[in-house]
């Protein structure tokens, strides 16, 4: 009897540990919400979402978050422009062309690329890629959106590649064989049969990569400069939502000030954007699995 009670006790303990993950999500939302609501008591939500000037640390503060959002979108777009074509090409190569030996050698190497700490990528962007780009683009500022965008693309390339490859591998062999039987080359089979068949899986991978790009912090904090600008030019210093949070965290901001609350409001916006992207990706992947299971 007592052993059965012990069993029940252990099970509840394990359950509580599993529930901690739900607690973490709830904790994130609560912590962000409390300070965000306090922030919106002082700054109208319309000004926050539509203002094009972000100068909360100035004597005459403005709280328009659009420059930060545009900065985030700009760097992420550059990263995606690098990572999506390159990641897809490498996924097609690894899934449809590469001999087993090559695949076994290349996949761990790609994993290393994904495991390099982001502060290291930041160093690389600032001290190597930016000077290199400046030789071709003389107008490029020492801090800019282009260099961290490219390096971030390199960082998320393995994610696009490995998840897309998984999706392509899940496409039934019969579809490929049908195409080959009709005389299609491997390229035609890959591009016209496998990729369309794996489309929702590949889209899920791309969206997840976008979410990673939006939330990436150190590369942009180091190499993009910390000047919120409402611009689409990738030649000049900009600031992303994540880099702003770092910038304020580095100073000694007293709790309860409006300045302290801005990072939670920006954090809330960041959390909601990545959350929406993650949900979309999960939903697409589930749909993709349904198609082929």
């Amino acid at each position, binding site marked *: 009897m007592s052993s059965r009670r012990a069993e029940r006790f252990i099970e509840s303990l394990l359950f509580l540990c599993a529930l*901690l993950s739900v607690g*973490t999500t709830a904790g994130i939302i609560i912590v962000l919400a409390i300070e965000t609501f306090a922030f919106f008591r002082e700054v109208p939500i319309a000004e926050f979402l539509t203002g094009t000037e972000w100068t909360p640390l100035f004597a005459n503060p403005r709280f328009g978050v659009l420059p930060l959002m545009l900065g985030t979108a700009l760097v992420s777009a550059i990263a995606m422009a690098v990572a999506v074509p390159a990641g897809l090409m*490498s996924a097609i190569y690894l899934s449809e062309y590469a001999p087993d030996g090559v695949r076994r050698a290349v996949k761990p190497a790609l994993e290393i690329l994904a495991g390099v700490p982001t502060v290291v990528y930041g160093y690389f962007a600032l001290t190597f890629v930016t000077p290199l780009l400046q030789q071709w683009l003389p107008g490029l500022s020492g801090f800019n959106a282009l260099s961290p965008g490219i390096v971030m693309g390199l960082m998320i390339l393995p994610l696009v590649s490995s998840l897309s490859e998984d999706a392509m591998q899940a496409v039934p062999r019969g579809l490929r064989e049908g195409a080959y039987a009709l005389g*299609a080359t491997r390229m035609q089979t890959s*591009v016209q049969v496998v990729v369309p068949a794996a489309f929702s899986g590949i889209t899920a991978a791309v969206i997840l990569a976008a979410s990673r790009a939006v939330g990436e912090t150190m590369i942009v904090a180091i190499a993009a400069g910390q000047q919120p600008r409402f611009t689409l030019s990738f030649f000049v210093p900009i600031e992303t939502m994540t880099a702003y949070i770092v910038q304020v*965290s580095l100073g000694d901001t007293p709790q309860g000030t409006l300045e302290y609350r801005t990072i939670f409001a920006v954090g809330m916006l960041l959390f909601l954007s990545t959350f929406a992207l993650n949900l979309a990706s999960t939903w697409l992947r589930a749909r993709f699995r349904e198609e082929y299971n």
Partner: protein
Amino acid sequence: MPVDLTASPSSATRRRADLIFQAAALFVLVAALAALAVLVATVWRDGAGRLDWRFLTSFPSRRAANAGIYHAIVGSVYVIVLTAVLALPVGVAAAVYLEEYGGRSRLARFIELNIANLASVPSIIYGLLGLGLFVRAMGMGRSVMSGAATLALLALPVVILSTREALRTVPSSIREGSYALGATQWQTIWHQVLPMSLPGIMTGLILALSRAIGETAPLIAIGALTYIPFAPDSIWSPFTVLPIQIFNWVSRPQVAFKQNAAAGILVLLLLLLTMNAIAIVLRDRYQRKGR
């Protein structure tokens, strides 16, 4: 998915296109890996000259040539060990619940979905959670404890997912044999399932920790200091970690500090390489045993 071959050019042209495509794809792959090599070479070129015993055993300094990373290494070790201590039991317990008890109940599925989502929440958001929860609400200050608790939450999804995979490799015949001998479910898990999946669990833990040791943003968000002239001596001490020290040096305009940053990066990469090597060895032995 129509493949309109009637509209296709001659087979020689198509074969040439195929070859060009293959070459292009291979080129992209090689370029990405070459970029990795260039990255390592750049850091080596910039930092190898600064890397010596004095650099490893000195404290930070206003003068770049005298500065070292002793305090940051000690801080990183403190934080990572404590992160492991916090994340391992909770992560394994959660995984055991989901894999062995939870079944396909709606709640278990919800928890699973939640964990998958947590795995892709930006790390700096965890930093804001740590700031609001551990540093402020629980009054733990900007201590090693706050940092480790934050990183533990960040590492949990990875630990849970890899532990579940390790548990899944234990054949059900082991469990059934144990039940047949009259063992309870928990006795079966504790004496049979967990020991068998331990190498897999440890591999997952090391991989999670090797990601945590390179994390910078969440620790900056909880307010870990960027300049401290001493090493932590308890879990309640203020601290800094290697990536933050690197960030601090990268952000300075002087070339000498950039060299310090590069030397710090070399140490960080070496640390990561060691951890990953251990994980690979464990995985290798585990797979051989599994067969």
